């Protein structure tokens, strides 16, 4: 009995390691590729981050984002445009990278809090139809994604402001405004993809 428990915990650890690794690699690969939709081409970096937050377990998601930043910080070319290195984190767009971690932690916190709340509720009264439950969960996820986008953009703008000595509006116009709509589209795509992956994995 004890052996079985030990084995299953080891397996979940291996699964965590592999999933975190996949999430890191996915983020890196998405950062290297640009996709043109409409007038502004963008990388799928934000998509990968949102997907990581939604699809993995809370600790795994934070570990994946931190690992991605670590890989980039030690100089491997995993950031957008084959960039890497510590100076990228300190550069004008570095705030977005830090923002991934901070926003990721907060979004994961929101999601897990909602999960706990819903878990205790659904035991008490699971009267709502399945559709309502799905809608509710997607609603919370959408909110978490919006919070994530806001934090990422805020961090990015703050660092840009600090480096170039411009006011917040100018920083916002340059850094965040052109990409807001696309970012929201990416977040929605991430929600859909994450739900598909969760549905396909029986143990999740």
């Amino acid at each position: 009995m004890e052996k079985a428990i030990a084995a299953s915990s080891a397996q979940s650890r291996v699964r965590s390691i592999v999933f975190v690794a996949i999430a890191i690699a996915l983020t890196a690969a998405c950062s290297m590729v640009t996709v043109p939709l409409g007038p502004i081409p963008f990388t799928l970096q934000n998509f990968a981050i949102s997907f990581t937050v939604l699809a993995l377990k809370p600790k795994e998601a934070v570990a994946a984002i931190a690992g991605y930043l670590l890989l980039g910080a030690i100089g491997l070319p995993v950031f957008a445009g084959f960039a890497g290195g510590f100076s990228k984190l300190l550069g004008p767009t570095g705030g977005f990278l830090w923002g991934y971690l901070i926003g990721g932690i907060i979004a994961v916190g929101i999601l897990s809090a909602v999960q706990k709340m819903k878990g205790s509720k659904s035991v008490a009264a699971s009267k709502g139809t399945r559709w309502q439950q799905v809608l509710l969960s997607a609603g919370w996820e959408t909110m978490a994604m919006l919070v994530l986008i806001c934090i990422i953009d805020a961090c990015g703008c703050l660092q840009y402001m600090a480096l170039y000595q411009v006011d917040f509006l100018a920083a916002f116009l340059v850094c965040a405004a052109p990409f807001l709509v696309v970012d929201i589209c990416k977040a929605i795509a991430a929600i859909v993809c994450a739900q598909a992956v969760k549905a396909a994995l029986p143990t999740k």
Partner: protein
Amino acid sequence: MSFSVPTYIPRDSPVHRCDARVKLGLLLAYSITLFFLHSWAGMGLAAVALAIAIAASRLPLRPIVAPLVPLYVLAAITVGLSYLNGNGTGASGWQALNGALLMGARIILLAWASLVFTYSTTSNHLMDALLNGNGTGASGWQALNGALLMGARIILLAWASLVFTYSTTSNHLMDALSSVLRPFRRIGVPADDIALTLSLALRFIPLIAQQMQLVRNAQYSRGAKFGEGPLNSIKAWGGTLIPVLVGLFRQGETLACAMEARCYGAPPRGAKFGEGPLNSIKAWGGTLIPVLVGLFRQGETLACAMEARCYGAPPRKRGGRTLLNRRPFTIGDMAVLVAGIAACALAAFFL
């Protein structure tokens, strides 16, 4: 512009034989030093140091220089724009006459800047300069000089990190990371797990890139002119959007069929070919979901295989993982590392 991911290139050279920890430390020192260098003497020295490293590594130049083409274009635009802006602040006679011309150039450059925004920080600098008119308020020569330095810094750093990537196997990198993190194990940091996770991630990047390459090939086979200059590439992206999306959609369908045959339910997709952002988003969804699901399945398989090989079994001796040929940190390694960091510190201090 074929999509390629930097991976190890085997060569027999001092750089390849060098301990990965030393290389890692030197790369970190190099990147921080570049940040502090503000003169051309310093930048020249850094470039010479990098050139020596490349020569010693016997790596072919093409894989180092080729992947960064968008970066070069961007650096060139930034320099040109800074020059224009610098002259603009002067408000001399000929400048006023050419104002309209400049405005046109700015608009074109702004469009271009938004196209290449995602590639680097220099475009940020560029858009800032465009919106604020005067840029940072420096004179023409200073602006040009600053822009050139910034471009040089970014390009040198990118080259250096590519040299590191090409000359280090992921095994060596994993061992280096693991040994760097070893002291933290005492305070409960799972050093081996972190090292394994990161090195697995490095292994997975080419795998995902392969999936994405499939997508790109579908686009290429439909006549998109990638790799014929940046302008052509952008045109190719724009002009062949619809066939590209159809290709993606079909591929997504194929993948989805394969997934469905294995009993996975993907969310329903409207089977409508056509134009417009909505359909293209659907097409991307159709591609991404099966790819992601497939990846996670592969991850599970790998996890099972690793478990079968006793990964994470209760540790018998120190550490749960067998390390292949663990390298001791020799005096020579230490000497190289210390010398490199000292050189970097001196350069950062004096230049």
